[in-house]
């Protein structure tokens, strides 16, 4: 319950502030020789989701962003860049 509320709060705050979220998923993934399919399988999402994330067409939930960061052994801030 608290987690869900926190996710909604963060999404709302970002929207209100007109912030953009960019990410380095493709860069980190290719650096490490990981295929989109592998990352998708590890995250429990479809390959299209990873592709959309990399192209910036879709912003992930906090949980997915967290899971991706953990998968790469990095912090969320190192993978996702918040821009005004």
């Amino acid at each position: 319950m608290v987690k869900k509320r926190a996710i909604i709060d963060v999404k709302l705050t970002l929207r209100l502030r007109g912030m953009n979220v960019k990410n380095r998923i493709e860069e980190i993934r290719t650096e490490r020789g990981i295929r989109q399919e592998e990352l998708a399988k590890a995250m429990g999402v479809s390959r299209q989701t990873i592709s959309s994330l990399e192209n910036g067409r879709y912003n992930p939930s906090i949980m997915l962003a967290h899971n991706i960061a953990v998968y790469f052994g990095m912090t969320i801030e190192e993978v996702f860049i918040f821009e005004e």
Partner: protein
Amino acid sequence: MRDYNKRIFVSLLWLVLGVVLIALGTMGKIDDFWSGMGAGFIGVGVVQIIRYARYKKDDEYKEKVDTASKDERNRFIANKAWAWAGYCFVMICGVGTIALRIAGKEMLSVACAWAGCFMLVLYWVCYLIISKKY
């Protein structure tokens, strides 16, 4: 896929209901509309049972279905599609109400207006319920 056995049971229920409706239609107890609906139920039941059977046997298909149902982008798209569909429906009802009125089809125009109003009321009810949940 959650509640696998429940889903199979529901599909079987569709199948049985379809067979009963067709049987009653053949005996002349009900009209063609209902037996046609029965055929539809049989179709839905059979397709669903085939899907569930494949889900149980084919591991690759199972993984594909599970991923698709859990995928957050998929859910986001589905929610967005429903929202758009609802919005378009209300707009079409509005335009339809005016167009039908101009065309002199008053009954249809009123029906269109009612459908649009019902959708808006439903939206507000859903909004209130969901806003209490979150």
